[in-house]
């Protein structure tokens, strides 16, 4: 997928930028500090997300901050197999040497109930009572903001691999203890805008949820579309009520405006209802989205309804893995998945791709950092992670030191039917349209500008 010429090109640009920024300090190392090594992955045949035994005692404690109760509870369940797959893999290798001792990894659940106040309460409990060393989380930008404040107050590092709004790492909210490994709103929309830059579609209709996240995504896409595709036209822009009951009125408005592409950042249940109502009402044009719906709903909607979905994500492998590492991981994970029982036998867990793949790769990166820091001490982890370059499953991930935002190539996948078999007898999407065409947007084409206030954060250290 990414030819060696391209890698060298990315590296040189990345090196040039880091040189320019860290003028006073020794130029960054040419090659990556570390990389994901598939061969080190232990035999995962005994891994079962339903029956995870957490080691206790003197362990590396990770606070898994997720929505475990309330309407959004499916969200919390989604990443439980991911973080435990990595913990299980590392524990089978004997754990990580930390402060001179080999320690196993213990995952401790923290229920944010998708409410800022509850999340704050729970995070403090995990720190004060369970003595967690690091936070892993969390869905909902407003929840991530609260966790990042708690992380700073109690000096506990927090990896945010799920919430993506720009405000999280801007001057006002930035703090040294939070690292964002998922792309932010700007990166996202820069990538998607560039994807459409040299494509025929001209008219775009923006429909997002009427709250902070929805507005920031809608406005960002309009802004970067104007930059990369000046001749594109926004034929309509609407923000609907969260948990909207009936999308039909919006669909009639959209179909009247006859757009080529409908752009939405909705997550479920809104995304789900939007897709169903759109296809039910005969709107067959492409829908550019992030996580419009889960795989089980796509299977229920069938081939026609799930055609023409354009997914932009920081991690997409699709139906033909490029590198041996991708192939092995996809095969290994899928084989294990076939044995899992409810609720983890759902289709969304079938491939370590898109959301599941991205969080899996980021979690491997996090534990790699702890291994290299050989300590759970916040300062050591921060110094290793700032400026780190990690060759992940889908390309080079660089943690920018100034604003703790990870930079990496973005991907845009288009769904179609049929999809190839990842390994004999295992089609990527069976009975519905899956991602069968992936376009890469190189890192330097979607590197967001460093927030003004943080540009010289390290210089006056």
């Amino acid at each position: 997928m990414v030819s060696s010429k391209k890698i060298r090109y990315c590296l040189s640009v990345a090196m040039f930028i880091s040189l320019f920024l860290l003028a006073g300090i020794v130029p960054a190392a040419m090659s990556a500090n570390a990389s994901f090594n598939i061969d080190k992955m232990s035999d995962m045949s005994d891994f079962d997300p339903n029956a995870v035994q957490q080691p206790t005692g003197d362990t590396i404690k990770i606070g898994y901050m997720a929505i475990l109760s309330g309407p959004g509870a499916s969200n919390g369940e989604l990443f439980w197999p991911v973080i435990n797959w990595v913990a299980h893999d590392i524990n089978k290798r004997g754990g990580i040497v930390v402060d001179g001792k080999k320690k196993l990894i213990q995952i401790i659940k923290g229920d944010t109930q998708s409410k800022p106040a509850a999340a704050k309460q729970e995070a403090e409990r995990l720190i004060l009572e369970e003595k967690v060393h690091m936070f892993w989380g969390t869905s909902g930008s407003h929840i991530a903001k609260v966790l990042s404040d708690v992380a700073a107050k109690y000096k506990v590092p927090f990896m945010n691999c799920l919430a993506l709004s720009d405000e999280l790492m801007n001057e006002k909210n930035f703090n040294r203890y939070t690292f964002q490994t998922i792309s932010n709103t700007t990166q996202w929309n820069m990538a998607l805008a560039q994807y459409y830059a040299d494509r025929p579609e001209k008219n775009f209709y923006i429909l997002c949820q009427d709250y902070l996240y929805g507005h920031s995504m809608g406005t960002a896409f309009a802004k970067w579309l104007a930059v990369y595709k000046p001749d594109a036209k926004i034929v309509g822009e609407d923000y609907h009520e969260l948990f909207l009951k009936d999308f039909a009125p919006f669909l009639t408005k959209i179909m009247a405006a006859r757009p080529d592409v409908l752009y939405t950042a909705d997550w479920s249940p809104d995304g789900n209802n939007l897709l169903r109502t759109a296809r039910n009402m005969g709107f067959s044009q492409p829908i550019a989205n992030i996580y419009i719906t889960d795989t089980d709903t796509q299977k229920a909607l069938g081939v026609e309804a799930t055609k023409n979905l354009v997914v932009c994500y920081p991690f997409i492998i699709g139906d033909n893995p490029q590198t041996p590492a991708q192939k092995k991981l996809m095969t290994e994970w899928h084989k294990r998945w076939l044995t899992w029982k409810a609720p983890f036998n759902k289709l969304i867990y079938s491939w370590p791709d898109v959301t599941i793949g991205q969080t899996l790769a980021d979690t491997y990166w996090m534990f790699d950092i702890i291994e290299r820091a050989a300590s759970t001490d916040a300062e050591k982890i921060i110094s290793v992670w700032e400026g780190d370059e990690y060759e992940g499953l889908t390309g080079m991930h660089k943690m920018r030191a100034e604003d703790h935002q990870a930079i990496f190539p973005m991907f845009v996948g288009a769904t179609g039917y049929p999809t190839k078999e990842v390994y004999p007898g295992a089609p990527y999407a069976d009975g519905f349209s899956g991602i069968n065409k992936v376009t890469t947007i190189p890192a330097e084409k979607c590197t967001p500008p460093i927030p003004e206030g943080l540009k010289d954060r390290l210089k006056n250290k």
Partner: protein
Amino acid sequence: MKIPPSDRGTIMEGTAFILLTQGIHGISYGLVLFLAASGLSMIFGLMDILNLSHAYLFMLAAYFAFSIAQVTNFWVALLLAPLAIACIGMLLERYLIKPVHPFGHTPELVLTLGIGMVLLEVVKSIWGTTMLTVMPPESLQGFIPIGYLKYPVYRIFIIVFTIIILCGLHQLFRRTRFGTIVRAATVNSDMVSALGINVPRIYTLFFGFGTWLAGLAGVVVAPLLSVHPGLADQVGLDAFVVVVLGGLGSLWGAFVASILIGLLNTYGIQLIPTVAPLITFSLMVLVLTVKPTGLFGDRQ
């Protein structure tokens, strides 16, 4: 509102189609709301009970529809699910609500609140919290063209189906013996029991009938909206507004109010999208300030 001239019609014609389609959307969603709210309003009218768990029974029906439709088809679900909900409703009334009813409205409202919470958790533990999809039956999956816009057949089915139910209700109350007894008991239940009619049994049956309507609404709405634990809150609040706005206990009030809210909602989205969600509640507060008993109601 920029509307490109459709290739066949002028801009005016384009607007006409849009407004017509939005009107039909409004009516179809309004009628679903009416189905959900009518049971609630009638139960209050006759038995002076306000059942906060009504919306959760409505959601339970949608989940039943999902499970039954998986095994058989949509039509069997449309038949069985409401009946199951009616039975559950009767059990609830007989063993939980009836003993508490004599103690006035406060304990009763709080009791039904508790029942709602329990139903929510039961649903989550059985069906989980992810989105479940109920597809409309094949015969109702097509479109019919309105100008250059296409309109799903299923929504037309909803309008027709609800009108039939409404006429059925009308006939039931006007013609049948059960209907006459119910109307008499609404005015003076002591006199009706004095005439030797087992009023408590009528109450239980009628409560079952009210929840049966909620069951119908649940099944009918399942293919429209995805079935998930938040469905009860989503539609439940609108149903309450319909009942209170239309006048507690008045069937025609609920009908007019639900159409009104349906249309206001869709035209609100078409014309003033940002403020649309506020319309429903501000309308309710406005009406109640002017006429505390609602549009058609006579009782508080």
